[in-house]
């Protein structure tokens, strides 16, 4: 079979382009937040996890310390550890392959692999999305960083508003149902209450503890909040939701 005829490769490529493109917003925001070109590239090359990267620069942009930024980024990366466990069980990489595979274990590669049922397709999907996003994300981070440097005053261009929208955009796909909304509201409230009392950056960690405690003590879906930023299978998912809805309606009748 030709590689491009594989459904998993096609999905992996399209998700690579959609996700890779928004590396441009990360690059521009990082440079607007005062990070130099190579610091910005270090995030995309070495950290390579969109949420954590935005979190680090978001904390620093708000006047937070390096240690608060590092902690927020590390906590936001915890879900990648869970993805690692899932991908290890699903793809069973042997020997040295685990090391490069771990680096590209992110929301989108995990979701692309999980959406396939054939083991070979799962593997193709994971690697296409993972490597594709890595390459494009880094290219567009560089473009964004250079463009950001050339822009001048970031506030004049509303780049602080871009950061607000970016975080909301990362949060949005995870708000499916009443419970995630309640968690988000509790975290937002905890943040607002904490802002006047603790140093900048720390309110984010307070909110993380509040949200973590809710997860620890309540009993809801175990995969709450584990959705990719860009959904590789939006049509199938909405069809599945529709089918779910239909069966509920039938049951109600």
């Amino acid at each position, binding site marked *: 079979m030709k590689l491009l005829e594989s459904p998993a490769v096609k999905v992996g490529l399209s998700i690579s382009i959609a996700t890779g493109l928004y590396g441009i917003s990360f690059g521009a925001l990082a440079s607007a937040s005062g990070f130099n070109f190579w610091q910005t590239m270090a995030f995309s090359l070495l950290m390579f996890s969109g949420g954590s990267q935005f979190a680090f620069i978001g904390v620093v942009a708000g006047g937070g310390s390096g240690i608060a930024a590092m902690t927020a980024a590390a906590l936001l990366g*915890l*879900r990648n550890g869970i993805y690692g466990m899932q991908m290890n069980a699903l793809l069973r990489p042997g020997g040295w392959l685990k090391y490069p595979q771990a680096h590209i274990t992110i929301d989108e590669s995990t979701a692309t692999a999980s959406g396939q049922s054939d083991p070979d397709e799962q593997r193709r999907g994971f690697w296409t999305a993972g490597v594709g996003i890595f390459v494009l994300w880094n290219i567009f981070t560089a473009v964004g960083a250079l463009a950001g440097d050339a822009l001048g005053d970031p506030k004049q261009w*509303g780049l602080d508003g871009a950061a607000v929208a970016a975080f*909301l*955009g990362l949060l949005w796909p995870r708000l499916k149902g009443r419970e995630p909304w309640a968690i988000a509201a509790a975290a*937002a409230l905890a943040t607002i209450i904490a802002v006047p009392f603790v140093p900048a950056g720390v309110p984010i960690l307070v909110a993380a503890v509040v949200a973590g405690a809710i997860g620890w003590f309540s009993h809801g879906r*175990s995969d709450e*909040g584990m959705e990719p930023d860009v959904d590789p299978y939006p049509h199938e998912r909405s069809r599945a939701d529709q089918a779910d809805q239909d069966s509920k309606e039938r049951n109600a009748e």
Partner: protein
Amino acid sequence: MNLWPWILIACGLAYLTKLSGYFVPAKLLRSPRMMRVAGTMTIGLLASLTVVNAVASGQSLAFDARLGALVAGAIALWLRAPFLVVVIVGSAAAACLRLLGWR
């Protein structure tokens, strides 16, 4: 403030977190509680980062053009705009409000 050390430590932690998933016994995967905490914490952190970037200014709260970006971003997301469009809409909203004189 030199941020290089914190950047590099954060990058190291990010990789070690991913890698650790490949070396823990599969039994841990069956711990729904750990999975839930990782998920709810993700929601909490992103919600908090949204709020901090929208209304925090150091240790005080400020209601300025960034609030307009929050509303505009939410409308764009509600209309199912892709991520990059949402970011551009947020930036344009803040820039326009500033042009109109709302800091």
